C-alpha cells in the first residue's frame, strides 16, 4: 500500500473472526406441515481465524448460500451460536445486525451491486455514511480504499462507465472502506471474464497478504484454489476442510482425520480440541 493509513490496516486480535458452533438453519418453520421443512444447515461448526483466506465451495443447494448469509449476518440461525469477531450474532435484532454488517463485514457480490446513479467514490462511501462518519472525512477515506484497488483515476466515473472488472474493484473498495474484520465475497468472479477473474483473485491475495481475513464463496474449484483453505459444503454439512500449504503444496484433510489444520469439524458440529 502506497499510503498506509490507520483506518485501513487490518484489525489485530486473537479472537476468531468467525466462530460458528452447531449452526442449524431450518426453513419453513412457520408451517404446521413438517414435510415442507428444509434443513439448509445441519449443525455446522466452523472457525475462521484472523488473517485467513478461506474459500467455501459447494454445488447449488448445498447450503453454502445459507452459510454465507449467516456468516454475513444477513440471516440468523435457527439454533446454534455464531460469534462474529467475538460478538454473538445469533440472537440479535435487525437493527443490531445492520450495525454488524456495517462495521464488521465487507460484502462483495456476484452482480457487483453498485448503485448506478452514484459515481465510484460515492458508492464506496455508502458504508461510511451508514456508519455515521462525517461527510467531510468520507471522501478521503473512499479515495484511500479506491487506491488500494488501484482505481483512483476512475473515482468520478459511474458504474455504467466502468468495465465489469473495474466495477468489482469498486465493490471491493466499498467492502474495505469501513475496515471490517471480514471480507465476505459471494461468487465475486461469477460475472467476470478470465482476465478480470485472475486480477480479482490477485487482488484478494494481496489483501490477504496485508492481513485481511477473506471468505470467498464459490462453486468453481479453480477460484477456490486461490484460497489458502478450502471448506467444502454439501447437504448442509461441511464434508471437507483442506488447507493449501503455505509453502505452495497442498494438503488434503478429510473429516475425522487428525492433523495440523486450522479447524476440525465433525458432522455433528462438535469442535475437536486440537492444538494449533
Amino acid at each position, binding site marked *: 500500500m502506497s499510503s498506509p493509513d490507520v483506518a485501513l490496516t487490518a484489525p489485530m486480535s486473537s479472537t476468531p473472526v468467525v466462530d460458528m458452533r452447531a449452526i442449524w438453519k431450518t426453513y419453513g418453520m412457520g408451517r404446521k406441515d413438517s414435510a415442507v421443512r428444509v434443513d439448509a444447515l445441519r449443525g455446522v461448526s466452523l472457525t475462521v481465524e484472523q488473517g485467513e483466506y478461506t474459500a467455501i465451495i459447494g454445488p447449488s443447494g448445498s447450503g453454502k448460500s445459507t452459510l454465507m*448469509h449467516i456468516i*454475513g449476518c*444477513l*440471516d440468523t440461525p435457527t439454533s446454534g451460536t455464531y460469534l462474529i469477531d467475538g460478538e454473538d450474532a445469533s440472537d440479535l435484532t*435487525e*437493527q443490531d445486525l*445492520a*450495525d454488524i*454488517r*456495517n*462495521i464488521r463485514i465487507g*460484502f462483495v*457480490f456476484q452482480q457487483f*451491486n453498485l*448503485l448506478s*446513479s*452514484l459515481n465510484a467514490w460515492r458508492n464506496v462511501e*455508502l*458504508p461510511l*455514511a*451508514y*456508519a*455515521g462518519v462525517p*461527510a467531510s472525512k468520507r471522501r478521503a477515506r473512499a479515495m484511500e480504499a479506491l487506491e488500494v484497488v488501484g482505481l483512483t483515476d476512475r473515482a468520478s466515473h459511474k458504474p455504467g462507465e466502468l468495465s465489469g472488472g473495474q466495477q468489482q474493484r469498486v465493490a471491493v473498495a*466499498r467492502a474495505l472502506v*469501513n475496515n471490517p474484520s471480514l471480507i465476505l465475497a459471494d461468487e465475486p468472479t461469477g460475472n467476470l471474464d478470465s482476465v478480470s477473474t485472475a486480477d480479482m483473485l490477485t487482488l484478494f491475495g494481496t489483501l490477504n497478504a496485508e492481513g485481511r481475513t477473506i471468505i470467498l464463496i464459490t462453486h468453481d474449484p479453480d477460484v477456490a484454489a486461490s484460497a489458502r483453505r478450502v471448506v467444502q459444503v454439501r447437504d448442509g454439512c461441511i464434508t471437507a476442510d483442506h488447507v493449501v500449504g503455505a509453502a505452495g503444496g497442498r494438503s488434503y484433510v478429510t473429516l475425522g482425520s487428525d492433523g495440523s489444520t486450522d479447524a476440525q469439524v465433525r458432522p455433528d458440529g462438535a469442535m475437536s480440541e486440537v492444538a494449533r
Partner: protein
Amino acid sequence: MNVVQILRTSWAAIATHRLRSALTVIGIFIGIAAVSLTIGLGQGAQRMISDEITSLGSNLLIVTPGSSTSSAGVRGGMGSATTLTIDDATALATPSVAPDIAGVAPVMTSSQSLTTSSTNWTSTAYGTTASWLTVRSRTVQAGRFFTDADVTDCATSIVLGPTTAEELYGQANMAVGQSLTMGTAQYTVIGVLASVGSSTMGDEDDIVVMPYSTMSQRILGGVNRVSTIYLAATSQNTLSAAYQEATSALLARHGVSASSADFSITSLQSVLDVASSITGTLTTALAALAGISLVVGGIGVMNIMLVSVTERIREIGLRKALGATPGVIRLQFLIEAATLAVIGGILGIGLGYLAGWAITQAISVTVTISWSACLLALGVSALVGIVAGVYPASRAARLAPIDALRSE
C-alpha cells in the same frame, strides 16, 4: 446517515423517474391549488364583508321601525311600519338619556326626480340632520355638507352623491353652486359626497341628502316619521351600552314592553358576525370538497411509492447489507414521499395564487391567500406525503436483506 444525505438520495430517486414523479406531483398540485383557492376565496369574501362594515362604521347601530313579532302575534313588516319619529331621534341625541351615543342621524327616504336645465335623473333623497355625515362615516369631496342651522332654517340646500352629481352635471365638482328642481321646489347644490361604492345598504353614491326639516315640509307634506335612525356609539367598546340605552329610551318613549317593541336595533357588528359565520361555513365545506382531490393525490403518492419500493428491492437489500438500519430505509422512503408531496404543494400554492389573481382581475371578488394559508397548505401536503409514505416505507424497511438481494 444524516438527513442531508437521505434528502440527496431521495432527490436522486425522484430525479431518476422524472415523468413518473411529475405525474405523481400533479395529483397533490391540483389538490393544494383547489384547497388554497377555496380558502383564499373564503378569506377574500370575509375581508370584503369586514371592510364594508368598517367603511360603514363599526360602531354603528341602526334603528328601524317595526319588529319581528308584535304582542298580538301579528308579524309587523320591518321598515313598512312608521313608528319612529324625529322626536325619538332628538331624545336619543340627549346625552342624559343615552350618554354612550355620540351621534344620531334620523333618515327620511323618498324617491325623487331631479331636473336641471339640460337633463333629469331619478335618485333616492335622504332627509336627515347635519350629524349624518359623521355617523355614516362619509366625507364631502367638493363644497360642504349642510349645518344644524340649515336644518333649523329648512334651507333648500342639498348635497349630492358622486354618481348623482356626475349624471346631472357631468363632473362632480361642476355641481356645487348649481340649482335643480326636485318635486315642485328649487334647490341649490352645496356639496358633493366622496364615493363609497355600493354596499349591502344599496347604492350609497346615487343619493340626494337634504335637511329633514326641508324634506318633511316641502316633499312629505309635514310628516315627521323617519324610516331609519342611525346611531353612532362613542366607541366600539360602548356599542352594547349604547344599544341598551337606545332600547330602553325608545321603549319608554313608546310606552311598550320589550316583548312588544315596535322597533328593532341592529348593530353592524352582529351583521358582520352572521356574515362571517356563513362565509366561514361555506369556505370550510368547499375546502373539504377540494380536500378530497388532495386525498386522491395522496393515494397517487402511495401508489407510486409502492411501485418504487418493488422496483428498488435490490437497492434496498444492498443498502441493508452495507449497514442501513430499517429506520434509515424507512426515513429515506418517507422523505421521498414527503418531497414529492411538498413539491406538489409549493406548485399548488403557486397555481392557487395565479388563479386567485386571475379571478380578482376578472370579477370583483377579492381572493386573499394569506401566509398562514400557504404554510397550512405546505404542512398539509407534507402530512399527506408522510401518511401516504408510511406503508410503502415500512414495507421497504421490513424487507429481509437476503430476499431483497436475491430478487432479480
